């Protein structure tokens, strides 16, 4: 086992552990911080896959925007630390069965995939994934339509937010 594999296993275990803590701790702010740890672990996994752009985008969007928003919302609520309610409801057995079944199904399907044991090809030094991604986003044969649609959607959200904040004149 190489060092890279050990590091991968450590990060994967950390991510899974953090994800478990997100749903099991009682303190809401702690849960949000564990969520950030889990998302950061996923960013590191992207780095292992040499997908630098995805890793950084993961940090910018999920940690920088969404988690900060979650924490901000939690801080505005009361009694974040003491929530004496039950952590499980009655349908936890069903949820567990479905989760295990999905996991087993995933493993089964992936193990039959012929390329599962293939090692990743070494990319040439000139291979610039970021440039290819950028070109694909503006290429008419590529993803220009989804890209523009997403832009229009975000613009609409932006204008909507301004309209709400504008007040009545």
């Amino acid at each position, binding site marked *: 086992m190489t060092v890279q594999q050990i590091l991968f296993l450590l990060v994967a275990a950390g991510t899974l552990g953090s994800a478990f803590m997100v749903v099991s701790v009682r303190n809401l702010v*702690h849960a949000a911080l564990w969520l950030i740890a889990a998302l950061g672990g996923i960013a590191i996994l992207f780095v292992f896959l040499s997908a630098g*752009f995805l890793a950084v985008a993961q940090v910018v969007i999920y940690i920088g925007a969404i988690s900060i928003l979650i*924490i901000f919302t939690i801080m505005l609520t009361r009694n974040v630390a003491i929530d004496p309610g039950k952590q499980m409801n009655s349908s936890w057995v069903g949820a567990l069965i479905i989760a295990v079944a999905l996991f087993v199904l995933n493993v089964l399907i992936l193990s039959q995939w012929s390329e599962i044991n293939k090692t990743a090809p070494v990319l040439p030094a000139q291979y610039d994934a970021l440039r290819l991604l950028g070109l694909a986003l503006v290429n008419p044969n590529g993803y220009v339509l989804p890209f523009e649609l997403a832009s229009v959607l975000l613009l609409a959200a932006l204008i909507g937010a301004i309209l709400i904040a504008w007040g009545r004149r």
Partner: protein
Amino acid sequence: MVDPINFIAQWLRNLMAGWRLSAGLITVILDVIGVLVLSVFVLLVAIFLVWVERKVVARFQDRLGPNRVGPYGLIQPFADILKLLIKEDLTPKGADRLVYNLAPIIALATVLLLWAVIPLSPYVVGSSINVAVLYIVAIGSISTLGIIMAGWASNNKYALLGAFRTVAQMVSYEVPMVIVLLIPVLLSRSMGIQDIAKAQTPFWNWYIFLAPVAAAIFLITSIAEIGRAPFDLTEAESEIVAGFHIEYSGMKFGMFYAGELLHALTIGALFSTLFLGGWRGPFVDQVPFLGIFYLFIKSFLIYYVIMWIKYSVPRIRIDHMLNFNWKFLTPISIALLIVTAVLDKVLQTSPHWVYWLGMLMANIFIALVSLSLVRRYGQSKRIAVGSPRPVARPENIYPQNSTSGD
């Protein structure tokens, strides 16, 4: 000439290869050593920064500053550190102990993380990733997190208020900052910060000449991101005592303090890499190692400018802070990005001096137009405040046109 740092790294690699370690392990060990060396070096610079900061602020305030301990007071920061180390380490009652202790670590670590992508010389860079500009933005958002954690975990209303202000400020100033960061990316056709530094080849091609307004906006938004005066609403002493770090004492406070100083220098390094050519300087092609000195000279220059602003400008009010960002900086940066992109495409085939002059003129035009718009707006506001208001006096309420005799 061989670069000493790469030479040592190559020597260590060969040494460990002689011990029959696997290639992957050697890479990991070398990376860890590199991280340690870089962090220790940057933290040592931070100790020196304490002295620089105190000496410079003293000069701005017509004082001498530290001058008792050692020559020119150079040993003063060590005395400061000793004082911080032997101070009692308090944890307030009701504080969230884990988060409370984690916050100063995150605050300092995020600053150190920024140094991972700053190219120190043509061949010495922590990690030459092709998304370095986006990485800087990502790390900036994590540093917001450290401050929120500190504010929330302290169990103090002033700390929480400071944290709220921080979120409002950092999240909003990120918007023009990201837009403006796109301009060097656009001019150099790369998101890698090393490529940006390499693209500014003769000194007149530094992006401060091609995009001066972008440079100014980057500096302003960076100061807001650090939370230094005039944007230090997060620790406004007269309003919320000390803001998010009110409950911290001893070395934990020291970490916030060192983080802030170091962040200012890091902004200087980023600014000089993005707009001042980074490690570029005379003879750097022959002796690449000189790049480190050039980078630090430029960084300290920008650091001086940041201190200059900090100690000359009073703190701005919170609504002014938000208005300044959303109604002034953001529209300008969007206009600047559009104009730069269009001009870049239009002038692509024209001779270089036309391109250069066109970019500079467009920037000056945008700056003049926006400043005159702001001046006109300010004038109209001042006229509205300064003009005489209707007063509830009888002659104002009952117009007296016929009774002129009494």
